[in-house]
């Protein structure tokens, strides 16, 4: 359950309009059977699990050593030439290990770059903003970007990152303005942003269309990192659309390019669990990832699968592992959304406190539905209803937001709205996963 909630956060919204159109069909067949489709084939991916290699991480360490030696060799300088690549190496080390300290190393280097660079303060500023976004420090990212944008800067590049930050902060009009300034249907950077925008508007068809266009550009350029980015994102979007086979294919394509890609492996694990109900195989994948990539969220998926198997003690064990990993990992605000979910039942006060911080940090519908959940669990039904009415209803079609809205409406006795939302949510079986799907059925 917990992970499916998280999964929603990840996998984003869904096509509201399609739901409406297909409601009648959905209603007639939604509760008929426990579906289990077969998409995966162990032979496709097993080869990627057994690898003990950590090539991406090792290469990044080699780069880190090279650039830091170069800095040491010119200790009388501010080393702006080495700062960027060194910070990049740390960021890659973080991406491939989940160790937050590397992200902090990169942050400090980018700050030095901003301070010391004669002509490229804006380049370092964009990199630092990117780093802040990874750390969920959105307001700081916005602040430095806006200041840089006002000053001497490469406008187009800065507009792209400003779009990203505005979306995180729920400043959708500003985000749209930034996006339109760079409108160019043959620009990868524009296409991935207009895809995100389409998804935000609930237009999954266009989101997919634009990501596919971006994917075509990545392919035409034969650019490995852009291909990986496109394939994994496309896999997720196909997942939202219920195109499980297509999603699976994208994850496999990613692994062909990057056999260590944890994100693609996790995507396949989700297919195994949600579509095929094969938690054993899914756990096998997660265990193989966890050897090198110790990121807390995998424990949540394990906890959810244990819950699915009615192994409640085990589920609790993994939930605690998640909490420990977050607490020990020095992740700052990065896992707040997850923590609200986790604490909602057992420590509602704490959940509410984190939710308030999170809304302060990013005033988006995705934060507000969590606040509403926390309010609900603290027996503040009316406040919860107000939160949903003012900040969530009609503003997002993300399944998790819809589910929490339904809980709030139910607690406030609005059965009509509960029924509407329930019918929409029943369409998202793959995306929500079996544990949550059951709860939706019971709404």
């Amino acid at each position: 359950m917990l992970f499916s909630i998280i999964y929603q956060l990840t996998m984003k919204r869904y096509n509201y309009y399609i739901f409406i159109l297909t409601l009648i069909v959905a209603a007639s067949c939604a509760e008929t059977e426990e579906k289990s489709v077969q998409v995966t084939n162990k032979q496709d991916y097993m080869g990627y699990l057994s690898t003990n290699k950590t090539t991406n991480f090792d290469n990044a360490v080699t780069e880190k050593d090279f650039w830091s030696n170069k800095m040491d060799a010119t200790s009388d300088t501010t080393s702006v030439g080495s700062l960027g690549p060194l910070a990049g190496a740390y960021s890659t080390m973080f991406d491939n290990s989940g160790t937050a300290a590397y992200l902090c190393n990169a942050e400090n280097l980018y700050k030095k770059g901003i301070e010391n660079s004669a002509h490229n303060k804006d380049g370092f500023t964009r990199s630092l903003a990117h780093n802040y976004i990874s750390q969920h420090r959105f307001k700081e990212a916005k602040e430095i970007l806006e200041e840089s944008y006002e000053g001497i800067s490469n406008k187009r590049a800065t507009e792209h990152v400003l779009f990203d930050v505005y979306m995180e902060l729920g400043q959708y009009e500003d985000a749209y303005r930034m996006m339109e300034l760079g409108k160019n249907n043959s620009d990868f950077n524009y296409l991935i942003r207009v895809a995100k925008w389409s998804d935000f508007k609930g237009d999954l068809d266009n989101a997919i269309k634009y990501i596919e266009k971006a994917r075509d550009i990545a392919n035409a350029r034969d650019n490995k990192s852009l291909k990986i980015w496109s394939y994994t994102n496309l896999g997720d979007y196909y997942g939202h659309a219920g195109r499980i086979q297509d999603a699976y294919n994208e994850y496999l394509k990613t692994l062909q390019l990057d056999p260590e890609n944890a994100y693609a492996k996790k995507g396949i694990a989700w297919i195994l669990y949600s579509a095929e109900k094969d938690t054993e195989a899914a756990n096998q994948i997660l265990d193989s990832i966890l050897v090198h990539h110790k990121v807390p969220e995998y424990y949540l998926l394990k906890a959810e699968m244990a819950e699915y198997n009615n192994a409640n003690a085990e589920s609790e064990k993994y939930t605690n592992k998640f909490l420990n990993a977050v607490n020990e990992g020095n992740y700052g605000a990065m896992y707040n959304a997850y923590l609200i979910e986790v604490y909602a039942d057992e420590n509602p006060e704490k959940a509410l406190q984190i939710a308030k911080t999170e809304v302060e940090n990013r005033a988006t519908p995705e934060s507000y539905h969590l606040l509403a959940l926390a309010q609900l669990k603290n027996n503040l039904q009316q406040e919860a209803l107000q939160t949903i009415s003012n900040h969530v209803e009609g503003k997002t079609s993300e399944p998790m937001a819809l589910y929490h809205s339904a809980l709030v409406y139910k607690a406030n006795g609005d059965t009509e709205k509960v029924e509407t939302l329930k019918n929409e949510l029943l369409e998202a079986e793959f995306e929500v996963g079996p544990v949550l799907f059951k709860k939706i059925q019971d709404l």
Partner: protein
Amino acid sequence: MKTIYKSIFIALLAVTTTLTFVQCSDDDDNGNAINEPTCNDGMMNGDEEGVDCGGTCEPCAVVLDFSGTYVQEDIMGRPGINTVFGGTNMVKNSFNTSIVSGRMNFQPIFEATMENYFDVYAMSLDLDPELVNYETNILGLDAPTFTTVLAEFDALQVAPDGETTYFNPATGAALTGRNLADDVIDISLILIFGGGDLENLNFSDPETGPLLITDGVGAGDRDFSLAFPYMSTVNQ
């Protein structure tokens, strides 16, 4: 070019105006009468994916597509223009997407940027910035003319006859090309900061003042004796 090339090429021409090319695999067709499908019978048969290619035959040729419009993202003539003058909005946002013959607007920015470098050093030396300025350089170019050359004529001049060099103090040849060995940094610094007397350059003595006419770096152990492509393989 072989059969595959021709057939695909012609087929494409027939269908579309998009011009394409293929990389050829090098099997020749022959005129033998054949019963069994083979990889050189000039027909697509058996498990072939194209005429005499694919399946159990050699992989099919790749169709090369060179169609489309390509739009400028970067441009370079002389070394360092962006680097030296890249600290302004206008250069950051439009220099690389402008054409060489359309850069009149950049000249005043270049001149101001250059003058600003002098001001920084004047102030650090407690001198009046008004008194520490660019001086007509060894080419005899004053500030407006020099920055006009940099902004509006940003190309390497390349002489087909005679020595090609960015500047060779030994022979006096200048502005006839750019060699791999040319110390374009020092030359550029001299042109900006050195003033007009090659024998007595400004900012040349770290004992008495700022050193601004050399970065103190030479070509090191780079090998300039190589035949085409003239550059050595990579640093390992």
